[in-house]
């Protein structure tokens, strides 16, 4: 078990190192000189050269990489070229929106998907299954901004239960902030739930054909109890894998939803940084996401071992 985890941890660290190299080199080859961008088109070559000197852009590549990597480790991401504030502050500011949004969306998606998957699997081939999977199919196919607009129309414009957009910040108490996140989280969660429900259903159906399900039925357990107690846990591995992938997506792949709801999230930060050639912000956010994916994958690997005792025994 410890060996299994240590191995996973090492793989995670190696992933981070490789990713940092790729990110660093990619942005090196992107055209556009950050010093020139900061100073504007009217600056003289001498001024640009001076700033390049100050920013360390003239140093050899390897030194700049090491410098940058050392900064990452101490959470010092450098200063944004456009905002001239530490990148870490920008990220923190956005993370307080994006992280809760991702967590709420993933929770909602799981809470919807697993019961739907169980419902459909228990009625395989019957009307209930067909209906549930038809709805899920629509959920997969429909873009999430369309859900978002529908949700805004129903809950914000028509019922006036929640604001249509914007984010009041956490300083005014948790409730207004949460209220602002509910609709975007729901809009994000529905398509994810549709995918997850299909995965849950097919994993369950596969498990329901196993001999041990028949053994459980022969003990006198009704189908419902067999589904919850025997089938679900065995079907969790593919479900957990998809959930891990979804969380990474929800953390920063949400730019469209952030735009629909005027949320100051990470997605918008990256988008703005790219258009303004604020490379240091782009690099930092990408590295943050890589780290998030690595951590989530570690958690997923750990949960595999929790779910399946055979993995605990294996090396």
């Amino acid at each position: 078990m410890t060996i299994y985890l240590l191995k996973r941890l090492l793989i995670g660290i190696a992933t981070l190192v490789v990713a940092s190299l790729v990110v660093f080199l990619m942005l090196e080859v992107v055209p556009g000189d950050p010093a020139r961008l900061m100073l504007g088109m009217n600056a003289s070559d001498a001024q640009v050269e001076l700033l390049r000197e100050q920013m360390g852009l003239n140093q050899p590549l390897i030194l700049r990489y090491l410098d940058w990597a050392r900064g990452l480790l101490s959470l010092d991401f450098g200063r944004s070229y456009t905002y001239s504030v530490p990148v870490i502050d920008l990220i923190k500011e956005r993370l307080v929106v994006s992280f809760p949004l991702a967590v709420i969306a993933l929770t909602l998606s799981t809470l919807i998907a697993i019961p739907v998957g169980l419902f459909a699997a228990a009625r395989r081939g019957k009307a209930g299954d067909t209906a549930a999977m038809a709805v899920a199919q629509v959920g997969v196919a429909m873009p999430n901004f369309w859900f978002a607009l529908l949700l805004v129309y129903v809950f914000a414009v028509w019922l006036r239960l929640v604001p249509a957009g914007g984010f009041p910040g956490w300083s005014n108490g948790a409730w207004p902030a949460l209220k602002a996140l509910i609709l975007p989280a729901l809009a994000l969660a529905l398509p994810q739930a549709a995918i997850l429900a299909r995965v849950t259903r097919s994993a369950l159906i596969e498990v329901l054909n196993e001999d041990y399900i028949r053994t459980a039925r022969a003990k006198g357990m009704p189908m419902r109890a067999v589904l919850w107690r025997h089938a679900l846990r065995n079907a969790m591995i593919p479900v957990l894998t998809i959930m891990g992938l979804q969380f990474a997506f929800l953390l920063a792949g949400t730019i469209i939803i952030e735009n629909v709801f005027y949320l100051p999230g990470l997605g918008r930060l990256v988008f703005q940084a790219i258009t303004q050639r604020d490379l240091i912000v782009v690099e930092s956010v990408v590295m943050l996401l890589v780290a998030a994916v690595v951590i989530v994958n570690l958690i997923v690997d750990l949960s595999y071992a929790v779910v399946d005792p055979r993995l605990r025994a294996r090396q």
Partner: protein
Amino acid sequence: MSLLEIEKLSLKIGSVPILKDIDLSIAAGEVMGLVGESGSGKSMTALAVMRLTPALARMEGRIAFEGIDIIGATESQMCALRGDDIGMVFQEPMTALNPVKTIGEQVAEGIRWHTRASRAEAEERARKILDRVGLPEQKFALTRYPHELSGGQRQRVAIAIACALKPKLLIADEPTTALDVVLQAQILDLLKELVSENRMSLLFISHDLAVVTAMADRITILRQGAVVEAGDTARTLSEATHPYTRQLALASMHVPARVKPHGEETTENLLEVANVTRDYPGRRRSLFSRPEPVRAVDNVSLKMKPGASVALVGRSGCGKSTLARMILALDTPTSGAIRFRGIDVTSGSETDLRRARRNMQVVFQDPYGSFDPRHTVERLVSEPLHLLERKPNRKERRDMVGRALHEVGLNRSDMEKYPHEFSGGQRQRLSIARAIITRPKLVVADEPVSALDVSIRAQILDLFAELNQKLGVAYLFITHDLTVARAITDDVLVMHEGRIVERGKTSEVLDHPQTEAAQALVSAAPDLHRAIARRLQEQG
């Protein structure tokens, strides 16, 4: 009144009739054997009693258990019966237990469900029944998981689950078919003891007449979903008045007529295995110590003459398949050498291997799993031809495939078909055709008939005997089934815990085994003659 009464039970899946007018009754405390070949409806009859039939199955007729109408009962009535009054043990112990739950949880679950006992009480009862089925606490704590247990141990857990609440009727569906003969004998003894201790009735399903005879007071013989004959076990089988019963009994004792291959006696060995050992990396116990290797094959030496027929027998896990894989050069020995017709197959040279492989082929146990379902028979059977020195052209290839098919008793025209168009026995013929197409000098057959019904099995054994004689091909039969060894081999090697512990003429070793391992195999092997005789003697 009988405990279980089945009258005119018919079952259809869609419009396909599976069971036709089955009549069967079991009195309290009685053991009923249900015999038949695959597809005869034995398992479906058992599932009908539990009402665990597939969703699309429709039943007609009457099944009464203690007067309760099973077909008409509500699902909650059935849940109350299952596991409490009727317990069931299935064939495949490796997959019958939930891999993510401890054995304690799985045994206690049914107890809690039916008796509403507290967790502690249920666990105490689970502990008692596990002790009873031969899984004592010191080695088999409730917290063990199924993957930590062997097949035989898992089947004991499955029996504990089925018997935990002392059901009035126990259904055992081929409970020992997946186990080796020694384990089979142990599990059968356990079932007998439990049945007599708790005065249970037992519906015992098997394809093996010898096993059923040892277990059952009465038998019912099924064929194609209908009852062929039913009655007292010993009388039904010893008199064998019904032609199908006689056919089954004869087939299960079938010994092919064999003449020694007429090839000239040579001193040259076809195969030489010298001091071969195979270690596998063991499980790592801690970060800092090297894992202890597991020795699967331990210093084995053997020789085979051309045209010889040799059995390699032993219990499951004794290393016989590992040894076979090394002979086929599918695995490399940790130490030792294997020479086939003078070629060292362990040297790792590709040209040497090609030369060797041309002359040795393999037949596996499972005729379903060893063919790609999307390839035609022509392609499948001609697979080994790429090993030949000169690639045959299309016409030559078709000729060779046609001849191989003819030799195994199939038609030339079968070459255009796909594997699913053949029955299990025909598929095993196909894999034999594939094995002999290169005219090999050695065929390694790993349990080649154990997945087949008795009558098909007799035919395939005949085919092996015939080819041995006609083509002079040598056989290495890997099996735990001594009747196969007896039927078709001249020499036998008994393997135990990675070593060959006894060797000699098949009849001598099997009649007068010297070592403990061989004696255990021989005494556990089911034998129809002996079983009938014993039963007649008991009845006086």
